[in-house]
C-alpha cells in the first residue's frame, strides 16, 4: 500500500492543486463532462423511454438496441469518432452519451411499465387524456426508477470519462494518461482516487434525491 500513501501525498501536494492543469480544475472539468453527457443522454432517452413505456410499442426494439449499445466498447467509439471528427470534446462526448443512453432509457420505460396497470386504467376511466395520464400519473410514479437509471448512467459515465483524455480532451483522465506515459504509478492512483471521490459525491446526491422522491410520492 506504499503507492496509496504516495498517491494521497500527490493529491495533497499544493503544487498539483491549482492552475488550469491542477486537481481542482481537472475535477470540475470531469464533473462537467459527466453532467453534460448524462443531460444529453436524458434529452434523447427520456422522451423515447416515455413513448415506449406509455404506448407499450417498440419495447422489443428498444431492449434489443440498448443491449447492443451496452456491448459497444467505449474506447472504440472514442477513437473512431476521434479519427473521423478530430480530437477534442466531441469524440468522448459521443461515446459517453452512447454509454449513458441505455441506462436512462431503461429507467424511463421501466418506471412506467412498473406502475400497476389498474391505476392507469382507473385514470383513463375517470376521463384523463393520454397526455394527462402521462404527466400526472405515469411520470410521477415512474420517477424512482428513472432516478435509478440516471444514477447508474452517471456512475458509468464518471468512471469512463477518464478515456476523454486519450483523444486530447481534459478531465481527470489527464493525470491517468500522463502517469501511464511516465510510469508514474502514484499519479495514476491519485487520478483513480479522485474519480472514486467524485463518484461517491454523485452517489450521495442521488441517494438523497431518491429518498426525497420516495417520501414525496409516498410509495414504499
Amino acid at each position, binding site marked *: 500500500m506504499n503507492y496509496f500513501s504516495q498517491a494521497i501525498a500527490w493529491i495533497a501536494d499544493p503544487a498539483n492543486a491549482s492552475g488550469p492543469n491542477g486537481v481542482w480544475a481537472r475535477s470540475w472539468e470531469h464533473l462537467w463532462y459527466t453532467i453534460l453527457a448524462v443531460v444529453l443522454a436524458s434529452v434523447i432517452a427520456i422522451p423515447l423511454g416515455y413513448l415506449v413505456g406509455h404506448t407499450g410499442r417498440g419495447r422489443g426494439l428498444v431492449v434489443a438496441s440498448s443491449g447492443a449499445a451496452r456491448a459497444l466498447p467505449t474506447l472504440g467509439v472514442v477513437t473512431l469518432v476521434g479519427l473521423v471528427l478530430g480530437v477534442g470534446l466531441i469524440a468522448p462526448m459521443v461515446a459517453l452519451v452512447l454509454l449513458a443512453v441505455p441506462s436512462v432509457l431503461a429507467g424511463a420505460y421501466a418506471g412506467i411499465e412498473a406502475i400497476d396497470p389498474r391505476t392507469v386504467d382507473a385514470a383513463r376511466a375517470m376521463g*384523463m387524456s393520454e397526455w394527462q395520464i402521462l404527466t400526472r400519473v405515469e411520470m410521477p410514479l415512474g420517477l424512482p426508477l428513472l432516478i435509478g437509471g440516471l444514477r447508474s448512467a452517471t456512475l458509468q459515465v464518471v468512471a469512463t470519462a477518464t478515456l476523454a483524455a486519450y483523444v486530447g480532451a481534459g478531465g481527470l483522465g489527464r493525470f491517468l494518461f500522463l502517469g501511464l506515459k511516465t510510469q508514474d504509478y502514484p499519479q495514476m492512483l491519485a487520478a483513480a482516487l479522485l474519480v472514486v471521490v467524485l463518484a461517491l459525491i454523485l452517489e450521495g446526491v442521488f441517494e438523497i434525491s431518491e429518498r426525497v422522491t420516495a417520501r414525496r410520492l409516498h*410509495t414504499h
Partner: protein
Amino acid sequence: MIRFQDVCKSYPDGTEAVRDFTLEAPTGKTTVLVGSSGCGKTTLLRMVNRMVDPTSGAVWIDDENVADVPPVPLRRRIGYVMQNAGLLPHRKVIDNIATVPLLNGVPKAQAHARAAELMELVGLEARQANRYPDQLSGGQQQRVGVARGLAADPNILLMDEPFGAVDPLVRADLQAELLRIQRELEKTIVFVTHDIAEALALGDQIVILAKGARIAQAGTPQQVVAEPADDFVADFLGLGRGTLDLHLRETPTGTLVVDGHGRPAGRLVEPG
C-alpha cells in the same frame, strides 16, 4: 337511461366477448350484470364510457349515441368505481376524490369542499383526508373509490366488482352503505359482479349472463329467484344445490331459516 342496442364485440384473434346484446338500464335504478368470469360483463360495462368500443351496435345514454361523444369528456361525466379502487398512490385521499372536478376546471378550494362532503357521505372520517391510499384499509380505499366516482356529480355510476377484494364483513357493510347512498342520490348504476348474493342484495334489475354476454334471464331479484328461466339460471343461483332452498325450523328460542343442507342461514323476525 342507458340502452345497449345489438352490441357485439369481437377481437382480431376471433374471440367473441359480446354477441348481439340488447338491454335497457333504467334511470335512477341499479342494474346488476352478474355472471362468471369471462362472460363479457366487464366488457359491456366499459362500453358505456367508451373504454371499449363495440365492433357493431350502439350504446345510448338517453338520446345520445356514446360513439358520437369524444371519450375524455364522456368519461368525466360518468362515475367509475373499480376493484382495488385504482386510487392514485401518490395523491392524498382528498386529492384522489377531487381528481375529476379538478380535471374539469373546478377551483381547488371548491373541489376540496365537495370532496370533504363526499367523504362524509361514504362514511370516511375527516382526518383521513390527508392520508395516502396505502395508509388506509381495503374497505376504506373502496369508500374513497366510491366517493371519487361521485365527485363530479355524474348521473351514471359504473361499478366493476367494486367490493370484490374486501373481506365478507366489510363487503356487507359497503353494500349497505351503497344502498343508503343510492336511496339518497338515485343514480343510474350499472354494477358488475360474479357474486349472486351481492346481485340480489343490490339490484333493482338483475341480468344473469352466460358466455358471450348472452342474457340467460333479466328481471327483478324476486322474479329470478321465484321463476328461474332455465337450468343454467337455477344452477347459477344455487337453487337445487341447497344454498338458496330455504325452509323454517322451530327451535326453543325462535324460528330459524335453514338451507337445504340443514345449515342455519338466518332467523325469522317480524318485519319493521
